[in-house]
């Protein structure tokens, strides 16, 4: 067990431990409430209450500079479901999220498996692959908007020397969203890789030894030992990637401002544009509430189907 | 609790530091973090903190001093 030695260390200290003041406090709820209270208070005051505020704003025709904001009930929501740009943004964001989950997660698992072979230089490889995660989205988007320049960008120059076709990347509505997804995978894959690698290190070696004795080949070991035992890790990775990918905004804001002809509009970007550029904060808040319901639903469904318990 | 408003305004003042004013709020944050880290690495035995944590504690103390005195450094800025 990876942490068995730390468990043994604690037990040793415990046995030699002599409590030198009053009897242990009873197991009442009070002490638990005391422990969880600061965090719950903080995120309720700072996130939940403002989110309820955003919902309240979404029931009004809220123009930031106006002095009074007429109540309009659910008109914003009705207009939202009839707005083609909102559906474009929803499809784009879902596509982006799917790309991240379908491509980023497997690559991260693959790299983690390779790093788990403890080859020489593993520390260098993991540091290098983790490097993009360390830099901020604004900086990475700026650098990549140069690399993606169809005429003098590094990528097309490299493709040209090898004779491959040189796509327009961010300039054409067909490839803009894919370019942003590609860059985001490049930046985010190290994050998932590190989590997978840690999950792999958590799997005890005696499982593998038993399997080798039974003559299981490499694929069978992966299929019947590694994958099932990685279930909780993959649950954690997929939930975090799902929530994270639905927040697509900075890359779109820096690289394409919604891209050619709404092709890279994301929901949060559409929220930002409506709320902060076009003065319809009511409509924007309605977008935000619908986004919240979608992602909240998805994460609950994901938790129900996958569950986070593991069977040894 | 008469002095609550005083405490409030003083504490808030710490939250802002102008162009060349000492960053008092920042120094306080670094001190709090340094106190926590040093307490955990030296006082709490079970943590058996590695060298990184101990050095980190003193680094935070240095940052607290830097935050306070750096804006008032004599050379022109």
């Amino acid at each position: 067990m990876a942490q068995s030695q730390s468990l043994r260390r604690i037990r040793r200290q415990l046995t030699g431990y002599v409590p030198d003041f009053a009897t242990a406090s009873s197991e009442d709820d009070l002490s638990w409430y005391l422990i969880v209270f600061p965090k719950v208070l903080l995120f309720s005051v700072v996130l939940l209450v403002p989110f309820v505020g955003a919902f309240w704003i979404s029931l009004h025709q809220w123009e930031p500079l106006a002095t009074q904001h007429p109540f309009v009930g659910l008109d914003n929501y009705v207009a939202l479901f009839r707005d083609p740009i909102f559906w474009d943004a929803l499809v784009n964001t879902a596509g982006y999220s799917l790309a991240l989950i379908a491509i980023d997660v497997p690559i991260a698992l693959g790299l983690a498996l390779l790093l788990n072979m403890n080859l020489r230089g593993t520390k260098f490889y993991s540091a290098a692959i983790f490097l993009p995660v360390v830099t901020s989205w604004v900086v990475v988007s700026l650098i990549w908007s140069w690399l993606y320049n169809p005429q003098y960008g590094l990528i097309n120059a490299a493709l040209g020397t090898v004779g491959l076709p040189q796509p327009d990347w961010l300039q054409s509505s067909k490839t803009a969203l894919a370019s942003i997804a590609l860059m985001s995978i490049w930046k985010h894959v190290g994050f998932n890789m590190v989590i997978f690698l840690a999950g792999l290190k958590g799997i005890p070696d005696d499982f593998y030894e038993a399997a080798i004795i039974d003559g299981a080949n490499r694929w069978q070991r992966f299929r019947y030992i590694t994958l099932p035992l990685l279930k909780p890790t993959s649950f954690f990775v997929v939930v975090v990637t799902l929530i994270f990918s639905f927040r697509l905004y900075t890359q779109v804001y820096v690289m394409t401002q919604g891209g050619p002809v709404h092709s890279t509009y994301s929901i949060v970007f559409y929220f930002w544009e409506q709320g902060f550029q076009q003065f319809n904060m009511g409509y924007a808040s309605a977008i935000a509430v619908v986004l919240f319901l979608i992602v909240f639903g998805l994460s609950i469904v994901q938790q129900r189907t996958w569950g986070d318990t593991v069977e040894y | 609790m008469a002095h609550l408003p005083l405490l409030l305004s003083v504490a808030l003042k710490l939250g802002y530091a102008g162009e060349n004013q000492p960053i008092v709020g920042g120094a306080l944050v670094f001190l709090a973090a340094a106190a926590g880290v040093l307490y955990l690495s030296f006082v709490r035995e079970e943590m058996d903190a590695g060298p990184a944590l101990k050095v980190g504690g003193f680094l935070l103390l240095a940052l607290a001093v830097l935050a306070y005195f750096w804006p008032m450094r004599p050379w022109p800025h």
Partner: protein
Amino acid sequence: MRENRVTRRKALAIAGGAGAAGLAGCASGGRSGDSGQSDGSNSATLWAWNDPGLSPIREEQAKEFEKKHGLDGVNWQYYPFDNYLAKATSAIPAGNAPDSLALSVLWVPRFGDKGVAVNLEEHGFSPDDYVTAARNNSSYDGTLWSVPWYADCRLLCINKQMFEQAGLEVPDPSHRPSWDEFANWVEELGKEHGTGYSMAAGEGLDAFVLSNGSGYLTEDGSKAAINNAAAVEAAEFLQPMVVEDEHVLARTSGTTHVEDFLSGQAPMLYAGSWHYPRLRDSGIDWQYNPHPGGPRIEKSHTWSAGVYYSVPSRGGADQEIGRKWLEYIDSMEVQKNVTRAMGGFPGRKDAYETDAFKQYLDDHPKLKVVAQEMENAVAFPSHPDVGKMWTAVHTQAEAIFQGTDPKSALDKAAEEINGLL
């Protein structure tokens, strides 16, 4: 095992105490530091969207303004252009308004319409002092809401060396090419250098639509004109050059087209007068030319924008200091040196007659054509939702340059604009 005898209660107290102190520190309230609001301290707070090229001039002007009015501090607060509105729409209603703030032409009508800016005509400013384009841009609904610091216009910019390499004769700077002449240039340059012209997709289409006598709205502003015959003709003129022979690059992000010109990738550029400092230091042998004129009218038009200052009428702004700042910006001392300072052009008509301005033009002949084109510059439509019109037309422009049929794309833009009127 070493037994640590420090009693837990004392140790817990230290850690708990330290954390709690930090926590208590931030659980408090009270007014933030002296960020220059009108609470007694006689200092001015000014906002502008950040432009690294303009900051030095703004600092200079802040010092002069401070000396002139004996203030004890003038501080600039800069925000990126795209988030400037987010800042303004959050801060002003909440009472953190600045004493004066720079506005883009797309925002002046909104600030006027919502009564967030002070009506300047009641304070001795008169709209007739300004060049026509600047006058329309700084007012809405017939009232003056802002004062132009500088106005600008759009032009063609040519790389003379690349022109000669393509066997073309470099035109006289004051010569306005016709569309056919322009198409021929693009053709020859494209053959020689691969690319003939680089422009911003949205503004590039706007310029050709304007140069053919059309625009976003009809003359009386009652209906969208972006899909009338003249506008469709402009789109049909441009589309093949972008889509088929690819000699024209239609850029979708902000400054890429300028970078195409500076990197020698594009011999011709859709340029603004504000690009003058960057072009001057680029080491390229370049010149400005008037934007090509369309077949339907003899004199072409281009957008005129620039930087306009207003005084917030709400949100705790010290309007007295704000008005003094506008007077300073409007003073002849500032207006006549605007071009020298940063290549922009004065908003005030009479500044064009001053010797300082004339002298500067003689020393910098390349700017003569800009002065000539300022008369042809056209203001943006004066409507609170001009920002939405801008987005609507530019989205359809991008669609046209991806191959969509011009007529249907411009009809969609017109439909969106009519929905706003």
